[in-house]
């Protein structure tokens, strides 16, 4: 027994003890190539067939540019709102005990589990002028459904969980010592929160907001039902791709899609690099 153990531990570190390296990595790479990478070749070929000037013309078309603007703005507002709401939710879930807490915790994930089309028709019905919320808001003179504001509402709804789920674990692991020291020295809650707690939370908060932003940029199902989809006003970029497809204008659809794809891949890589960095800092090299 002791000989086998020492023989095993004497093996050089890089020697793999566990089986299945070739099988698991090989099939993962095969699957990712087949499912994720191969389909991209179609887009590359389609856009490569276009001349540069034609490509530029399609992606800077006035109506398409208007869709970039409304998509980005709505996503910015939605993710900032979710940053605040998510931080509040995470705080309340981690710091306090109250009846119904487990239900609240479970409900946070509703937007992930609920199909986007269901969310879309529900929000459209609620915020329509004769809907539960729409009636109240109409009295204040606010129109949400079928306006850009509807896009913000739909995007916020579908990305609520991101900030909560990134901030929650960090908040749970936060050591109480510094905080207690601050309080004992007579600092106010707010200044301890701002000077001691927020600096430890903000990398996670930024990650959550960035994830929420990325998701909002790509959101389609929930948005199209509430947005009204008026050209130049409340048309999101994903819908522009869809519109071009329905016109059988494949090159234009591909060109716009390539812009969206490049933007979301850049965001994804940026988020992952950012996360790796702050995790390293957090867990000490």
């Amino acid at each position: 027994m002791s000989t086998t153990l020492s023989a095993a531990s004497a093996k050089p570190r890089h020697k793999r003890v566990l089986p299945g390296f070739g099988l698991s990595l090989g099939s993962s790479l095969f699957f990712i190539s087949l499912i994720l990478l191969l389909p991209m070749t179609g887009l590359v070929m389609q856009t490569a067939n276009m001349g540069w000037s034609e490509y530029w013309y399609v992606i800077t078309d006035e109506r398409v540019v208007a869709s970039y603007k409304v998509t980005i703005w709505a996503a910015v507002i939605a993710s900032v709102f979710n940053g605040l709401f998510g931080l509040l939710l995470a705080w309340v879930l981690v710091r306090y005990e109250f009846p119904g807490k487990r239900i609240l915790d479970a409900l946070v994930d509703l937007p992930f589990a609920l199909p986007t089309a269901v969310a879309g028709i529900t929000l459209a019905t609620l915020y329509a002028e004769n809907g539960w919320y729409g009636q109240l808001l109409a009295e204040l003179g606010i129109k949400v459904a079928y306006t850009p504001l509807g896009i913000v509402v739909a995007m916020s709804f579908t990305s609520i969980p991101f900030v909560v789920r990134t901030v929650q674990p960090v908040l749970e692991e936060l050591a109480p010592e510094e905080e207690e020291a601050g309080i004992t020295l007579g600092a106010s809650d707010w200044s301890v929160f701002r000077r001691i707690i927020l600096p430890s939370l903000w990398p996670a908060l930024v990650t959550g907001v960035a994830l929420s932003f990325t998701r909002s940029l790509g959101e389609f199902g929930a948005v199209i039902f509430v947005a009204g989809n008026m050209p130049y006003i409340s048309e999101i970029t994903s819908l522009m791709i869809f519109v071009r497809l329905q016109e059988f204008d494949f090159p234009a659809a591909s060109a716009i899609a390539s812009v969206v794809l490049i933007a979301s891949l850049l965001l994804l890589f940026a988020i992952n690099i950012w996360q790796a960095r702050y995790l390293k800092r957090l867990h000490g090299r």
Partner: protein
Amino acid sequence: MASGQRHQQRVGDRPAVKYTLIGLTLVLTAVLLVVPLISIFQQAFVDGLAVYWDSLGDPDTLHAIGLTMFVALLTVPINLVFGVLLAWSVTRFEFPGRKLLMTLMDIPFAVSPVVAGLLYLLLYGNNGWIGAWLFEHDLQLMFAWPGIVMVTVFVTCPFVARELIPLMQQQGREDEEAAVILGASGWQLFRRVTLPNIKWALLYGVILTNARAVGEFGAVSVVSGNIRGETNTLPLHIQLLYEDYQATAAFASASLLAVIALITLIFKAFIEWRQERAHKAESTH
């Protein structure tokens, strides 16, 4: 333990602050999540139970339900196997490009579902380089159920791996390495050592994959062709009914998907409760 601490030691523990924050959170959650959820069922049953059953019994609706179940039935096992293999390779071995592989896995999260659908349409549609070949051999993938399955696999492929990776990383390799040293074969090792440790996370990954698979809208709507009674999945059918001013019927179908979402949430809460209990049992030992 932690609950026995003195007063006002931590930020936000004063009752005024605490109850304001809890109250604010509950109000916002009610407005943003609970009321929308309830309104789905209210809208579905607004004309009574008989109308509800009638709209679910419609042949097109039944066909959409059947197709959706069929798609989920094919998608879930594929992503289950892939998710386990991927999680095994990235948590049990070190290799160059490991981080990149994990980032690639996140692409479906970041990419707009419309873009995902377009990628498949461009490659496997009649104009794509694979599609043209398929066309010559009389194989139609797009605007038919295989296309729907393919994009659903794409959109839902990260979920199982995403649930498994953090857990498997946290559990480490020691148990498995010990089993190998004691002479366990690869399959025995997985079934007897790994699987019991990850079974709940795995099951949740499967349930989440299922929830997303039955609810996928954007990607499916690009490749389905929306042929009523043929290639309409449940979310597409909901859109069709809703835009056809059959809101009650749309919400009746939506209520089915909402129930699946609720089951997913309840299951997640159950797993977290179990984990917490196991954690407590461990720490009292």
